C-alpha cells in the first residue's frame, strides 16, 4: 500500500518521535521503570492502543515489516484497524507471519513462535502501574518504586493464597525485572509470562492515556512474583487446539452452540494456521521449544540451557509443586472462613 502523502511518515511529526525515542531509550536503560512521556492524542481512542501505536510509530523505518495482533489474532477488528493505519500513514510492508516481522505490535499476547534478535515487540498497555489497584495514587506508587517498597504486593499475593489457595491473578501477572522494578507486563495471560524473560527481542510497553513507556531490553531476566511454597505456574485451559492439535499453545474457548457446546482453539492465529498448513496432525514434535522459564530467585543468569531443551510438560514439572489445595497457608484462611 502506498503512503498517504498528507501525513508525515508514520503519522507523528519528527519532534514528537524524537521525544518518544528519548523516553524509549531511557526505558531501555532502566528496565522495568515507567518513563513519563508526553503522549499525544492519536486518531484512535485512548484504550485502543494509542501508547503502542506511538511507540510503533517512533520505531518504524520504511524498511520495516509490521505485524499487528490483538488477543493473539491478526484479524481481530482492532488489529486490522491499526495495521491499516500504518499501511496508510507509513506505507510499510505488513505480514501476519511472526518470523517475517521486524516490529510486532500486540495486545494481550506474546506470539507462540519464539522471537529472535532484532525484532521489536510493542505492547499496548492500559494501566502500566502494577501497584495501581493496591494504591490508587500515582504520587504514592512512584515513591514505592523508588524505595523498592513492594511489601504491599507480596501481602496481596499472600492474601490470595490464604483466601483461594492459589495466587488469583490470571493475567497482567506482576513480574520483577532484574531484581529491581516490579513491572506490569500488560494484560497478557500468565501463561505468557515465561516468554518475557531472556527474550532475544526488544520488548517495549506503551501506555498512551497514562503517559508511560517501559521496556525490557533483550535478554533481560524477568521473574514472576511468587513464594517458595507456592511457585508461579503458567496456566492455560487443558487440552489441545481443535484445529491444529497443539497441546502447548494458549487456547481460546469458543462457544459453538447454545447447548453448552464449546471447543478450544489457538489464540495465536498465525501459529495455528502455519501448523494446519504444515499438516501437523499431532502435537509434540511440531511445537516450538518453550522459552526458558525462570524460577524464583534467579536473576538474569538463568539456568536456561536445561529448561529450554526440555518439553513444556517438563518445564511445568520442574516447578514441581502440585496445585495448592488448601494446604499450608491456604488451610488457615479457608478454615477461618468455614468456621465463620
Amino acid at each position, binding site marked *: 500500500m502506498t503512503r498517504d502523502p498528507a501525513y508525515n511518515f508514520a503519522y507523528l511529526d519528527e519532534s514528537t518521535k524524537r521525544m518518544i525515542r528519548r523516553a524509549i531509550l531511557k526505558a531501555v536503560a532502566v528496565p522495568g521503570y515507567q518513563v513519563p512521556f508526553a503522549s499525544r492524542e492519536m486518531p484512535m481512542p485512548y484504550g485502543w492502543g494509542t501508547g503502542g501505536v506511538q511507540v510503533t510509530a517512533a520505531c518504524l523505518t520504511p524498511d520495516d515489516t509490521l505485524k499487528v495482533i490483538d488477543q493473539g489474532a491478526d484479524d481481530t477488528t482492532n488489529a486490522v484497524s491499526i495495521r491499516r493505519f500504518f499501511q496508510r500513514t507509513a506505507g510499510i510492508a505488513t505480514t501476519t507471519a511472526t518470523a517475517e516481522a521486524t516490529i510486532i505490535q500486540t495486545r494481550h499476547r506474546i506470539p507462540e513462535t519464539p522471537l529472535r534478535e532484532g525484532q521489536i515487540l510493542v505492547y499496548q498497555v492500559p494501566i502500566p502501574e502494577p501497584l495501581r489497584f493496591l494504591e490508587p495514587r500515582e504520587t504514592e506508587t512512584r515513591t514505592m518504586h523508588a524505595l523498592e517498597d513492594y511489601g504491599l504486593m507480596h501481602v496481596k499475593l499472600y492474601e490470595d493464597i490464604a483466601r483461594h489457595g492459589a495466587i488469583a491473578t490470571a493475567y497482567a501477572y506482576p513480574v520483577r525485572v532484574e531484581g529491581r522494578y516490579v513491572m506490569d507486563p500488560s494484560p497478557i495471560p500468565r501463561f505468557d509470562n515465561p516468554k518475557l524473560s531472556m527474550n532475544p527481542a526488544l520488548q517495549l510497553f506503551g501506555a498512551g492515556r497514562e503517559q508511560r513507556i517501559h521496556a525490557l531490553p533483550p535478554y533481560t531476566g524477568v521473574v514472576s512474583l511468587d513464594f517458595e511454597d507456592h511457585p508461579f505456574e503458567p*496456566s492455560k485451559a487443558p487440552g489441545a487446539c481443535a484445529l491444529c492439535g497443539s497441546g502447548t499453545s494458549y487456547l481460546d474457548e469458543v462457544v459453538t452452540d447454545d447447548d453448552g457446546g464449546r471447543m478450544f482453539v489457538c489464540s495465536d492465529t498465525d501459529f495455528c494456521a502455519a501448523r494446519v498448513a504444515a499438516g501437523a496432525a499431532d502435537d509434540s514434535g511440531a511445537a516450538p521449544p518453550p522459552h526458558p522459564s525462570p524460577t524464583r530467585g534467579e536473576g538474569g543468569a538463568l539456568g536456561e540451557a536445561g529448561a529450554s531443551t526440555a518439553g513444556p510438560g517438563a518445564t511445568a514439572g520442574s516447578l514441581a509443586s502440585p496445585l495448592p489445595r488448601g494446604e499450608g497457608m491456604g488451610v488457615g484462611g479457608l478454615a477461618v472462613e468455614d468456621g465463620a
Partner: protein
Amino acid sequence: MYVAVKGGERAIDAAHDWLAQARRGDRAVPELSVAQIRGQMALAVNRVMAEGSLYDPDLAALAIKQARGDLIEATFLIRAYRTTLPRLGASLPLDTGRMDAIRRISATFKDLPGGQVLGPTFDYTHRLLDFALMAEGGDAVAPPPAPVPSPRGGGEAPVTATGATDADEAPPSPLVGEGWGGGACPPIPRVAEILNRDGLIQPEPPGDAAPPDLTREPMELPAPRPLRLQALARGDEGFLLSMAYSTQRGFGRTHAFVGELRIGDVAVEMEIPELGFAVEIGTVEVTECETVNQFAGSRTEPAQFTRGYGLVFGQTERKAIAMSLVDRALRWEELGEDATGAPAQDQEFVLMHADNVQATGFLEHIKLPHYVDFQSETELVRRLRAEALAEADPVAEAAQ
C-alpha cells in the same frame, strides 16, 4: 468444522458505510450545513472548542456534524486534529479587562463600575417549549429582534468591525444599571480589584513564568496552579459541574460567590520578533469567572476573601463557574486550609479524571475483545472451584 473468525476488514468497511448513511439520516430532509451548526448550535460549538482546546468555530461545527451531535466524539476529533498542528509561538496573556463584553454580571454588588449586563442568557427564561420553533422557515415566526449579539456601547451607535448591523436595527439593549462604556472596549474594572483596594481579598501577584503545557509535557503531580487551570479548562463540563456541586453540598465547601462573570471577545496579541512589538492577530470569545470565597484567616494573617478562577473558550458559563469552584477547592493547601478528604480537594483525583477524551476511551475500550484475559480468568475460576468443591466434599467429588 469450525473455522476461525475472519472478515474483520470487511466488517469495518461495512460499518463505516453504514455510519455515513446513519449520519446523513433521512434524505428527504435537507442536510445540515456547517454554517448552520456554527450559527445555531453555538453553545455546542463552544463546548467542543473548550474541551477540544482549539479555538476554531468552523472546525468545531464540522466535528459536531461528523460526530452526529456526540459532543465528546466531536471533542475527540478536534483534539486529534489539534495535536498535529505546529506551534508557531505563544500569544501575550489575554487582557480580559479589555473584553468586548456581551454579558457581565456580579453577584456580590448590586451595581458597580462597568454595570450589570445580562446579555443573551437563559437565566430568566421560562423553560416552556416554544412550539413556534417547530415551524419550518421559522424567521416569520421568530420574534422581531434578530438574534445577533448586541454590540457593546450601543448607545453611541457602534458598528462592529465584522457586523454590518445598522444602528437603527440594533436589538433592544439588555443593559441594566450604569456604565455604558461607549467606544471600543473600554476597560471594565474587576470586582476582585475593587475588593483588593481595601485588602479584603487575597492578592494574585502577576508572574512572568511561562505556564506549563500538559499537551507537550506529561502531567506531574503535585501540579502547580497554572497546570491545574489548564487541565480544568480542557476538562469535561459534566465532571467539573459535579465536582463543583459536591463542594457546594459540603464536600470541601468554600462558600463561593460569583464575584464576576463576563463573556465576550478578547483581542489576541502576539510579539512578532521581526517587528519588535506585539500586534493583534485576532479575537477569541471567552467566558471568565472569578469567585469570591470566604476565608477565616489564621493567627498570622487577618481574615481575607480568597479567589477561584475559571476561563473557558466561548460562551460557556456553567463550565467557567464550575471551574472556578473546583480551582478554589484545589487551593486548600496554599491557603492554609485543612484537607477534609473531599474529592474536589484531591488534585490527583480531579486532574486525572477530568479529561473526557481519556475517560471515554478507557471506559469504552472494555468493549474491545478481551478473549484472552477472560479465558485466563475462566480457567482460574474453574480450577479454584474444582479444588474448593473437592475439598468441601471429597466423597461426592469422587463419586462423580
